[in-house]
Each structure stands twice: as C-alpha cells, then as structure tokens.
C-alpha cells in the first residue's frame, strides 16, 4: 500500500503529465508482460528439451510471416473481435455474461433459417443477406437481452442464466438442424438447406479474409464511441460503477442493462451470421466452435476496451494460426498453444497491478486509490 503513495512533484519535475504517463504505461506494461510470458514459456520449452528459438520463429512464420499467414491470423481473429465485444459491453455496466457462445450459435442458426424461404422464393442476395444479418443480430440480442432482463427485473444472476441459456441455445439449434429444418441431402452432417453461392458473403477485395473482420473493426470503433463519448455510454459506465448511485440519479437502469446486453447479443449473433454466410453456407453443429468463450478472454485482456479488443483478437488469431505449424514442425501436441495462451493470460492479468506503480513513472498519485 505504502509503495503506491508517492509525492506528485517527482513526476511533474520530469515534465510528464498524467495522460502521457498512462499512455506510456498502456504500451509498456502489456509489452513487458508479453516478454515475460515468452521467457516463462521458454523455460517450459527448455525443460521439455525443445528449442524456444524454433518455437517463436514458427509462431512468427505461422502468424505473421507471409501474406498467407497474416490473412490466416486475421480471419481467425474476425469472430473473436465480435465475441470479445459481446463480453466487454455488458462488463462496462457491471455484468459478467458467459452467453456469447449461445448467442453466436442461435444467431447463426437464425440467419440460416431465415435464408431458407428467401433462397426458395428467389430473393436477390442484396435483400436476403441484410435480412439474414438482421435476424442473426435480433436472435442474439433477444437471447442475451433476456439474461439482462432476468437480471434486472427478476433478480436472476446473469452469469449463470447466460451460461444456461447458451447450452439451451445449442440444444435448440441441434433440435432443428437434425429435425424440422434438416436438408435431406446433408446426410452424415445434418445441416439446414445450403444457401448457394449467390448468398455468400465474399472476401474483402485483395484478401482471402471474409467481411466479418471489417464488421468487427467497424463495430469496435462504433461501440468505443458509444461507450466513451455519448450520454448512453456515460450512464452505462456510471451504472457499472455503482447501481444505487445511478438509480438515485434517476438513470433508467433497467433500460441500460437490457440495451447493453442486447448490443452484446447482437455482436455475437452477427459473428454467427458471418460463420454462416461467409464460411459454412448452412447451419450445422460446427457453429459450436468455442468462439464465444475465447471472446471472454479477449475482452478481459483488452480491459473491456472495444478498441483494444482488435489487437488482442489478432494476437489470438495468430497464435491459433501458428498452432498448426508448431504441431507439424516440432512434433508437439496441439495443446502447446493452449499452455502458451494460459501463461500469457495469467501474466497479462498480473501485469494489471503495475498500472500506476512503475517506479520511474511515479505518477501523480496522491493516495486516492479506491
């Protein structure tokens, strides 16, 4: 405790204003944490008799080393940006939601279900695809919004209800995909009717990365502005800080909670839409790929900041992309990358403690830590 409190004049005498200090910290600390994780993981590798040098050069080759690798990383990052946002937005209002996986699955399934009549009756794709996206966002939004509603109006803990709703969403998808909406031709991989090539969202021109990445980037910026530059965002963050105070101020807490949850669900649902429209072309059990759960980690490492989610998601994408190469070249199990990810998470979270406590950056602290 005492180490934190230090006289303000030191920082001032070095000519560092608090804002500069916090930007230096925001770069220095995560980079330091990544270096520390790399060192820890190297020790792990050395203990197993593997070369850290080979490992990290493979991670570079597989994640960023060529045009192909970069696109591979970006494509894998695309759903993670959206599911990261789905965790981060409710977190700003003080809710811990584990439901992005379910919202993604339900969103993707709804998009594919809506596509069936659209394709059957020959609607052009420029009408059909937006309708599908809308259906996906609506389904996801309602699903997570429901968790928010239950929380505010019925007092049901949102962490557990969103987790349960996620499992139920997967059951709903499976029930329809293997029953009522099953395409008889899908044989051994029960799926809804294929939408055909016209109904596919293509790649961003000049790349092999689908448009879900662009959607994620745009939404991250939009939601950043919403949460930091608008009255809504201010009210939401205030509610997140102290519900009672927010209520006393006359803020519409119920509306804020449900809206934040609905936005989160819409983000995850949109991720589901791109899984359907850009990748699978139909809904099936492959929608359950764990992006929703990885998104939680992405959001935490980005400290719930929508903009920071972008680089964090890309880092995850790159590690994922490199994982296969490590498996093939170093004869190491696929879980190697899981171990590395685990170490990075833990170290990055530990590094949070250094904000405002780096000795040579002794900031304007006056002991007002809460």
């Amino acid at each position: 405790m005492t180490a934190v409190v230090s006289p303000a004049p030191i920082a001032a005498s070095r000519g560092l204003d608090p804002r500069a200090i916090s930007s230096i910290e925001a770069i220095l600390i995560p980079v330091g944490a990544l270096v520390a994780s790399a060192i820890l993981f190297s020790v792990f590798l050395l203990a197993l008799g593997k070369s850290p040098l080979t490992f990290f050069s493979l991670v570079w080759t597989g994640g960023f080393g060529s045009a192909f690798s970069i696109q591979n990383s970006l494509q894998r990052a695309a759903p993670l940006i959206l599911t990261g946002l789905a965790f981060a937005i409710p977190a700003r209002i003080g809710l811990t939601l584990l439901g992005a996986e379910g919202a993604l699955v339900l969103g993707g399934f709804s998009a594919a279900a809506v596509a069936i009549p659209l394709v059957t009756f020959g609607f052009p794709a420029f009408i059909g695809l937006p309708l599908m996206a809308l259906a996906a966002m609506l389904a996801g939004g309602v699903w997570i919004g429901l968790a928010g509603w239950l929380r505010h109006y019925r007092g049901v803990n949102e962490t557990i209800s969103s987790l349960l709703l996620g499992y139920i969403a997967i059951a709903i998808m499976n029930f329809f995909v293997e029953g009522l909406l099953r395409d008889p031709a899908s044989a051994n991989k029960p799926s809804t009717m294929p939408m055909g090539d016209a109904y596919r969202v293509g790649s961003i021109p000049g790349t092999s990365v689908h448009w879900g990445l662009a959607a994620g980037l745009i939404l991250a910026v939009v939601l950043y502005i919403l949460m930091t530059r608008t009255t809504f965002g201010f009210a939401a963050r205030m509610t997140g800080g102290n519900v009672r105070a927010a209520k006393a101020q006359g803020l519409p807490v119920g509306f804020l909670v449900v809206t934040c949850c609905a936005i989160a669900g819409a983000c995850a649902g949109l991720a589901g839409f791109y899984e359907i429209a850009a990748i699978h072309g139909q809904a099936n059990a492959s929608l359950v790929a764990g992006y929703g759960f990885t998104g939680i980690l992405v959001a935490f490492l980005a400290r719930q900041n929508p903009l920071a989610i972008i680089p964090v998601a890309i880092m995850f994408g790159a590690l994922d992309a490199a994982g296969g190469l490590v498996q093939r070249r170093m004869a190491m199990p696929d879980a190697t990358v899981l171990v590395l990810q685990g170490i990075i998470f833990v170290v990055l979270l530990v590094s949070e403690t250094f904000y405002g406590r780096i000795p040579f950056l002794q900031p304007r602290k006056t002991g007002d830590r809460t």
Partner: protein
Amino acid sequence: MSDSSLFIVLIAMVGGAIRVSTPFMFVALGECLTEKSGRINLGLEGNLVLGAMVAYAGSYTTGSPWLGVLFAGLSGLVLGAMHGYICKLPKVNDIAVGIAFMSFGTGLAFFFGKPYIQPTAPRLEAIPLGWWSSNPSIEQALQVNPLFLVGIALAVFMSWALANTRWGLIVRMTGDSAASARAMGVSIDLVRLLATAAGGFLSGIGGAFLSLYYPGSWNEGLSSGQGLMAVALVIFARWDPIRCVYAALLFGAAGAIGPSLQSVGISQGYYFFNAAPYILTLFIMIASARSKSAAREAPGELSIVK
C-alpha cells in the same frame, strides 16, 4: 408412459444423481468456500480437468487410485493457491484471473495428458449399498463411490463449521465485509488465499472422480464444462454447502433423464431431454430468484453479485 417405464426412469435418475453428481458436488463445495471468503474463482474447470488428468496419470504410475486422488487434489491446490496469490495483488480482477486459469489448467492437462489417453489405470472401487435388493437396476443405482459419501459429509461439516467455529466466522466475515474483518485484525488476503487453495484442492478431487470412477477414463472431452457449471451452481445454491449438494444431485438426476427416457423408448426431442439439467436449473432460478433471501445470502464482498 407405463408404470414400469416410469419406475425405470426414476431408478435411473436416482442412479444418475449418485453417479454424476460427485464432481459437481466437490467443485461446488470448493467454490462455495472460496466465495464465502469474498472471492470468486471461475477457473475451477481448469482445476477439474487438470485434476482428472493428474489422478489418472498418478493412478497409472503408482498403481494406487487413492494416491491419484491425492495428487489430483494437490494439483488443484497449486492452481488455487496461484489464483489466490495473484488476486491479492491490487487492481487484479478475480473473475478474469479465474478464466485465465481455466485455460491454463486445461492447457496443461491436455499437454501432459497425451500419453495417458491410451493406458488403462486402476480405478476407484464402489461400495455396493444396494445389496439388500434383488432388483439388479436398484442394486446398480446404489453402487456408491466413497467420494460421494465424503462429499456429503464434507458439506455437512462445512455447513456446521461455517456457522459454529471461529474459522468459519473469520471466513464469513472476510466475505461479508472486508473492513470489519480488517478491524478485527484478520489478514484478508491470507484468509482468501487459503479459501481459494482449499477450493482448488476440492475441485481437483472432483476431477479425480471423473477419470478414476465415472466415466472412469482420461481423454480431452472428459469434462464438457462441468467445472464451469458447478461454479454457477454455487450461485444457484445461494452459498449454502447443503444446498450445493442438493443442486449437484438435481443436476446429476436431470442428466440421467435423456438417456433413460430413450431406454424406455421415448426419444423424440432427445436434444431437449439431454439439455434438461440446464433448462430445469434456469426455471428453478427464475422461480426462486425473486425471494429476498437470495440477495441477503450473497457474501457482501463478492464481485460477481455486487
């Protein structure tokens, strides 16, 4: 459904409750203790999976399943202590660290568990409590693993100890109001560290049950999120060890509904029957959450219910 079918399903649910509930019970009790001290560890799924792997590896290497259980507990203890230590650093979010540990523990388990997928390790034996019955399915349903009984005894003990001992008081006070605990001269960080480590230990044992008894095998799909669900069950059980046992039993029984209904020929909509534990839990939560007692029983310092 005929009477005999109903009987089969009911027996299966009793059996399912006994067979499937133990991992939920141990993780939930561990988490209950941790949360009572005012901290949440969402990462017990990692402890569970690592515990399952370590138990299997330990039993295979030493030939003694009970040593495997011990090793599993210790591996959980280490993860829990790490969680507890990291969370005492200022500005570190316990929920986030929990999720990080979930992936770290799982990663370690998968990484080191590869060589143990193939071999068959000695497993824990059951106590045949159904010896009195001539009905083989009742006999089978009452095959009880000692860990199940240990779990129930532990819940009773925890419930008593939290209410009636000095230690229990300290844990509860730390969880309800850090300020008053500090005023009493209690080291909050130490209490929470110990509570998290103990919670980790119990979760590791929950994992041992999975790999050494039921289903009794180690592979990467073994847990399917049971640790995460068990943590959620603590909130459902409103931080009461006895209710944690009820929740685990209910969850286990509900999980048996899907397969047993199919075994008596009712299989339409089996996806929903298989999702019965989740649907049932959600409905019970919605039905009971409005009561005022729910809010009162939550430890005041807990980040997730603030």
